[in-house]
């Protein structure tokens, strides 16, 4: 199936939206968002739920999901993030979900394959790229560096080094950067095709070696799944309040917290059973066991 292409008007709308949102969040000009994407979620009062979900067979796992719920007339927004994905893709996925948040395009579960053929998803991907690295900034960087807006005559290795520097500064996935350079007409279709098939995650590959020479720490960070299990402090508070209000029992409390690698103990709720009670239960049930035998 052919991929959907955005027209100039649609691209312009997305560019303006991304610029406006970046500015309102305090990111002006050549300021990378990178890791600050998580702070942005806090600022927007969006609760983040992190959990690693591996793909099942050839069905790609979701990247991120945005959900809304309403409680006592207060609208709650959650982003579920699949932390089994590479870290730079996690950042991109959050930026993608922010498009749905800003445009109120509804509850949404993003799967990589589905997105290429759906207009809203193509727009959300374009927004994510624009939000993380604005087109005007990218054009300006290219011009500053090469003194020309066209890189068609630039050799492959030079392009790889350039992309590696962009990658480690702006934290946009390698392939998104390649796509951005093609979208703004800086590289040719042949260069795009050649760059797109590079084994970009392999630390021993050409691109991996170049990137590590530039910034090993960041390259390795961006190319690893974090597998984090966690949630916003607000969400943990909801779980604790549910327990305090006797809406869930201790077993469910401990079980739910364990999903986020937390224990009741950490919040001052130690689950204790007296030795006398344990002995009493043991004596009774052991007797029953003997009867059965």
């Amino acid at each position, binding site marked *: 199936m052919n991929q959907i292409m955005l027209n100039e008007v649609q691209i312009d709308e997305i560019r303006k939206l991304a610029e406006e949102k970046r500015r309102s969040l305090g990111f002006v000009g050549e300021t990378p968002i990178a890791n600050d994407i998580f702070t942005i979620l806090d600022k927007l009062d969006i609760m983040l739920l992190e959990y690693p979900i591996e793909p099942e067979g050839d069905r790609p796992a979701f990247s991120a999901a945005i959900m809304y719920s309403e409680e006592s007339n207060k609208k709650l927004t959650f982003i579920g993030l699949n932390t089994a994905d590479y870290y730079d893709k996690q950042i991109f996925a959050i930026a993608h979900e922010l498009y749905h948040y800003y445009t109120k395009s509804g509850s949404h579960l993003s799967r990589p394959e589905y997105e290429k053929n759906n207009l809203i998803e193509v727009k959300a991907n374009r927004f994510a790229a624009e939000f993380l690295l604005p087109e005007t900034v990218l054009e300006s960087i290219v011009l500053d560096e090469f003194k020309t807006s066209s890189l068609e005559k630039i050799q492959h290795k030079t392009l790889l080094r350039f992309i590696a520097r962009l990658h480690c500064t702006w934290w946009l996935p390698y392939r998104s950067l390649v796509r951005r350079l093609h979208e703004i007409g800086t590289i040719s279709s042949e260069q795009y095709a050649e760059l797109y098939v590079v084994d970009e995650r392999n630390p021993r590959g050409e691109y991996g070696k170049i990137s590590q020479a530039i910034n090993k720490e960041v390259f390795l960070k961006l190319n690893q799944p974090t597998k984090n299990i966690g949630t916003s402090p607000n969400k943990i508070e909801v779980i604790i309040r549910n327990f305090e209000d*006797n*809406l*869930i*029992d*201790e*077993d*469910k409390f*401990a*079980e739910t917290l364990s999903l986020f690698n937390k224990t009741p103990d950490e919040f001052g*709720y*130690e*689950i*204790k*059973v*007296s030795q006398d*009670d*344990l002995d*009493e*239960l*043991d004596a*009774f*049930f052991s007797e*029953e*066991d003997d*009867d*059965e035998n």
Partner: protein
Amino acid sequence: MKINLTHPNPALISIIENPKQMITLDANFLIPPDRSRITKRSIGFEQFKKIWLDPIFSAFPNLAIHESVYDELVGISAQKYVDVKRNSKPPEIIVHKDSSLTEIERILRDTIESKIASLTKYDPMIDNKDDRGEVKSLSFIAVKGLLYFAAHDNNAIQLIEKSEEWSTGLDNVQAIKMYELIYYLCKNNLGSKTAMKMLYKYQYYLTNHEKSINPSWGDFSSNMDSLYELNDTTLNF
């Protein structure tokens, strides 16, 4: 789970008066409770059968489960137990099947199911396993006008008890909790009193927190006596 002894439960009163009424069971009434995370001891199925299931089946001749609850039992001992009860003549348990719903009942069931599902982890669109049994059971019995649902899960109980506040459509369904049937069995000499006391302790009065919110066995039984105006001394240990 917190025990509520502030008001008598009309469902238990009705069951005390006529134990032959149909009671639909949630899966946690048929599967041994497992608090081994806390106690390092679980209850084996044979033990559970002897102290709980056999007395329950001898006390109530019209028990039922929904087919989705039966599905939850696949591959575990409880399934064989239910199969024997189901195939006995006359059957000692029946399985509610959605295929028995008329077209109008199905529409009504879907409406109730969507209302309940939004308050649980079950999503009818993907038909996941989480909370599936309780959602399917409750919507079925609500549509069929069946009254009693016996459960140990706090969420299922709240769907019934807060039906008006949460608009779940379960206004006519009544919940019967495990501790109420522990009391019933004990009071009617239908189960070992020591076993009932131990089951009560295991489920409701084990941790320091539970001891701070729930009554001891002695207080529980005397409070239940007062609530249901039963004053003999069969619960003294």
